[in-house]
């Protein structure tokens, strides 16, 4: 009898333990889908090489657009200055800011070299979620955490890399500019930066 119970209990515990890994919540599943499709594009041999760069980057952008809530992200980066933007300026700002982010970080993603992503922990509260992940590189592991929000679907609105929040990092920069200048000139500054990067004369100039 005792033996039967313990056998039953053992099976139960094992089943629960095995299932819990598969039972990640909705936000994490969604995040994983996004990251997996990015990795699929980056490791797709048909899309490799400089000749395919445009095609590859267009695909990555489509994925990014469907997983990042650019509006929420921009609004939070502008923080309390957001109210000073006119509706048109807000749209303009979201478009140019997300363009700057995609342009620079997709270039960075291109250096992907089979790093493994591990999903560590997921927390959900109402329409918000927080997910801890870890990217294992050759000589170190980098913690990357995601803030997500649910509208129709779960979308990422902030990324924390090694303790540095993307939104908050921009919030300081924008606050400094907006305390002196108008939203219009901030948008212009972002557009100038994009133009600057497009012309390829980017980083070697000191912009302090």
């Amino acid at each position, binding site marked *: 009898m005792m033996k039967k119970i313990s056998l039953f209990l053992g099976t139960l515990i094992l089943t629960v333990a095995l299932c819990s890994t598969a039972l990640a919540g909705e936000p994490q599943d969604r995040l994983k889908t996004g990251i997996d499709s990015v990795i699929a594009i980056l490791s797709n041999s048909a899309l490799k090489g400089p000749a395919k760069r445009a095609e590859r980057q267009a695909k990555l952008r489509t994925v990014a657009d469907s997983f990042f809530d650019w509006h929420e992200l921009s609004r939070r980066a502008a923080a309390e200055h957001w109210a000073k933007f006119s509706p048109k300026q807000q749209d303009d700002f979201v478009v140019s800011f997300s363009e700057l982010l995609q342009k620079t970080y997709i270039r960075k993603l291109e250096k992907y070299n089979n790093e493994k992503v591990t999903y560590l922990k997921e927390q959900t509260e109402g329409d918000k979620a927080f997910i801890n992940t870890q990217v294992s590189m*050759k000589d170190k592991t980098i913690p990357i955490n995601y803030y997500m929000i649910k509208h129709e679907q779960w979308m990422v609105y902030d990324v924390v890399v090694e303790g*540095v929040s993307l939104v908050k990092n921009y919030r300081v920069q924008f606050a400094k500019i907006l305390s002196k200048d108008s939203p219009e000139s901030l948008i212009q500054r972002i557009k100038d930066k994009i133009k600057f*990067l497009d012309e390829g004369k980017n980083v070697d100039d000191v912009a*302090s």
Partner: protein
Amino acid sequence: MHTQFRSLLATLALTLFCSAAALAAGTTTAGPTEPASLAQQPVVTNMLLAYGDVDIWDETGQIIKRPASGEKMTMSDLAAQTADPLEGWNRMWFGFNDKLYFWALKPVAQGYGAVIPERPRLWVHNFFHNLMFPVRFVSLVLQGKPDAAAVETSRFIGNTAFGLGGFADITADSKPYKPIGSTEKDLGLTFGYWGAGNGMYLVWPFLGPSSARDTVGYAGDYFLTPVSYIHPWYWSIATKGYDKINEVSMRIGDYETLKDASVDPYEAVRDAYLRNRFKKVND
């Protein structure tokens, strides 16, 4: 022999001095046992607080506990608000370091990286990392983490004796039975762990972003770094320079992305440095 003894004494004296100073600071500020997610003193005047959207979690995923006063900042936000009274001066050195990187460090590191494959560069990285053991060990002991210090010691012995003097990181996959937290510590982080604030933000030529606290820590680390004792002094500098080039060769692109993506690179680096250091204090 005599000089070695003297330098040892100097190290000891400095460490004691630093610990005494920081201990004194530690008694006036709150201990590290406080929940990391909660900012302690309400800084009401900051305009970022007027922003209505309250986050549920802080940067590490801890739930932000909100006391009656309605605290909306994380500890990381507080660290990121470290004063920058010497901004003009700091910006000048930021510009200097930026040029140093693009005109000297990066081309040399790229050339070096083109000649030496990644794997040997990883060995060199392991060697120098292993050599920095005294910094980590002393910091962990001063933070009262004997378990972590012991693990660091066994890694050092293992890698030195059986990993070809540290070139192979053979202990990387050996995990301790109990989680011990990060062992990547230095004296600046130790002072932070004791409760010392950053003081103010500083940018040093060659060394990059720092703070008053981390500068004192760096001075202490200098004496705990074996490479500092290479004689004559220019070989010591050259060795450190080589270590730096080797590190840069494995990190090319990181700084470029941050700089490309930001509208004010100086502010972006400052925020990133302060928040990253805060995270490391609590890791």
